[in-house]
């Protein structure tokens, strides 16, 4: 076992942290979040030129061939800056699904574009009826000659507005909750019959409701084997969980550290707040929660990297623990900042909101605790 980063990994971390500290102060982030696009295309090109977008993509398709640990480092660092660019959607969910299940042609067509920054994607996998359960699919895909025709509605699809392609889960057979019978399709965003309602999200990102009405795609749009989309989705969601957990670890680190800084300089009762034992202990607990989350994030990432049998169990434990610890760290960062923690002018509020949504992504702590305890 070796828990040290490689030289390349250290360089990656350094380059992101440099970018975040020079380009991503709170005001810049607010401007981006409020802009029409919701992020910066210029940043996106920078990410491409720095090789971040090529990181998890196989070398055969213009990538760097990094593993899940590299992605973890990427997301932990992005989490420290609350970066709003659609990296999770494009790289981990869309790109991840292609890497896991794509045919040679599909990979050739899309992966090099992700790596060079010219292609963005999103994963449309949730529906309003059961938003925590990606196996509850009512959207239908019916084969008609040389085409599949999709009908239905997908909910809270992050970054759909900026995506050139969507990966859509639809039912090709079975009942709404059957594991078998879900298939995945690669659908260009401008395919006739797709209507989007775009909206901002509380954590400063963008998402959409998507209606699919007689959306016709060729048979070659099928991603993976027909009816077996659930297992692909599960693998993609696992990677999504690792990525947002790493992001949460980065955000928690910023929160506990900035709360230490604040309580050292804020004086009440003629002492810095950090002099009071109750505050010291709370900060210590925040630090411990952060550390536990970071440990499990590292372990689950390395296990899934190796594909060991107990990796899935660790992913469930991780998502539960990240939900629990990020709630503790977030809430106490606000609490210890007092009234200041409640204002939108401080970065605290924005990390707090992002952590709140990370818990809701890919099933919250309750859902994963159930899965973990079986």
């Amino acid at each position, binding site marked *: 076992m070796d828990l040290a980063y490689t030289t390349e990994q250290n360089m990656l971390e350094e380059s992101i942290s440099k970018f975040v500290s020079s380009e991503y102060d709170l005001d810049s982030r607010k401007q981006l979040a409020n802009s029409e696009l919701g992020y910066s295309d210029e940043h996106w090109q920078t990410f491409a030129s720095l090789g971040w977008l090529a990181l998890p993509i196989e070398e055969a398709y213009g990538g760097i061939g990094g593993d899940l640990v590299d992605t973890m480092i990427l997301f932990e660092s992005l989490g420290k800056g609350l970066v709003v660019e659609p990296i999770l959607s494009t790289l981990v969910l869309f790109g991840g699904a292609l890497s896991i299940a794509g045919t040679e042609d599909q990979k050739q067509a899309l992966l090099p574009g992700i790596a060079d920054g010219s292609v963005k994607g999103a994963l449309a996998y949730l529906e309003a009826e059961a938003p925590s359960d990606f196996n509850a699919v009512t959207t239908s895909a019916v084969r008609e000659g040389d085409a599949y025709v999709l009908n239905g509605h997908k*909910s809270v699809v992050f970054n759909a507005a900026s995506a050139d392609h969507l990966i859509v889960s639809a039912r090709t057979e079975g009942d709404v909750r059957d594991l078998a019978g879900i298939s995945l399709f690669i659908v260009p965003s401008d395919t006739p019959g797709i209507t989007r309602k775009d909206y901002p999200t*509380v954590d400063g*990102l963008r998402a959409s409701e998507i209606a699919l009405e007689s959306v016709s795609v060729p048979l070659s749009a099928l991603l993976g084997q027909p009816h077996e989309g659930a297992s692909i989705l599960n693998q993609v969601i696992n990677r999504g969980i690792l990525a947002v957990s790493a992001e949460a670890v980065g955000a928690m680190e910023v929160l506990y550290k900035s709360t230490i800084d604040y309580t050292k300089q804020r004086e009440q009762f003629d002492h810095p707040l950090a002099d009071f034992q109750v505050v010291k202990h709370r900060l210590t607990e925040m630090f411990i929660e952060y550390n536990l989350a970071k440990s499990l994030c590292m372990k689950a990432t390395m296990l899934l990297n190796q594909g060991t049998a107990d990796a899935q169990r660790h992913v469930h434990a991780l998502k539960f623990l990240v939900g629990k610890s990020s709630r503790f760290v977030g*809430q106490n960062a606000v609490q210890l900042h007092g009234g200041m923690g*409640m204002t*939108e002018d401080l970065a605290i509020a924005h990390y707090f909101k992002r952590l709140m*949504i990370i818990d*809701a992504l890919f099933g919250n702590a309750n859902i994963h605790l159930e899965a973990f305890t079986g």
Partner: protein
Amino acid sequence: MDIAFSEEDLAFQQRVRTFIDQNLPTGMALWTKRGEWFKALANEGGWDVPKWPKEFGGPDFTPTQRYIFDLEMGKQSTPPQLPFGVGMLAPILMNYGSEDQRDRFLPGIRDGSVNWCQGYSEPGAGSDLANLKTRAELSDDGSHYLVNGQKIWTTLAHIAHWMFCLTRTSSEGAKQEGITFLLIPMDDPGVEVRPIITLGGSHSVNEVYLTDVKVPVENRVGEEGKGWTYAKGLLAHERSGLAGIQSSVMGLEKAKANARKVKVGQGNLLDLASFKHKVGILEAELLALEFTEMRTLARVASGGDPGPESSILKLKGTEIQQRITELNLEAAGIFAAPWGAEAFGPDFAHGATQSYLGGRATTIYGGASEVQKDVIAKNVLGLS
């Protein structure tokens, strides 16, 4: 000891229920006909000011009646009064104000025609409220104070006509001395209100800048330099009012109903042990807290003071409020995220996110939880 209500109490309960049935406006009318509701309460014998003593027109409820009254009103989610006038300033005026001040201000407080805000916290005076620096200097002729300084976290200052304000008239001696309680009209040209947008994007708190505001001495409550003593008594009132127990009882029922609407696997969210246990723990704690409040009321009735014990209610009550917002947030799932003009997903989702975010303030304002624990440790347990 007897947990059962007496015949009289049961009759009172019936009377409250009938009153609500006959007078509570429903639907949108709840907003448009608020005034009539409060008028009807007043006509019932001071039910609009249930905590006021009889000599000022209150109903003089027994503790059990107060409990029943709050319970029944809470169950029907009757519209609350803004707390600043009726609940916070009025008791101070009754105890320490002049005859003239009571005559001038109590009627407007009672009928809701005059809005008040509380000018206590300052950038350097939060938990350590006595550290406040806003200066009030008495003019040479003794006719008025000249007030300069800044208040912060001033709830509803932007709609208030008046502010009751703690100011410093002397820097001699202990910080708690030299604080004077003034009533300041918000339309004075020296008063500037700037909004603070809080977590969740809402505007209810403000910064209030006071520049050369002339306050006639008639607007000083009680004696110069005694403001801290007056305010401390009021803080106990504020605290017991912040527990929000009945609204939490209702809120928890609502949260359970919301969770039932959320499908998980073959059932709904309430079938999930990880969620159901949180609900159960909250329900048990609420049952206990409700009765703790009853015990506090009983002590007051037998001549005691709500005193430091009211910190228990504030501490536990606000924590429970926050945990209920967590349940709704968890039930909303990923639909907590949409934040545009249009709402998506379950009908409660958007409100769930707002309440969760805004609710973080409840353990900060009115004395942060950490401070409440110090109050209990020092004043109840005798730990200095």
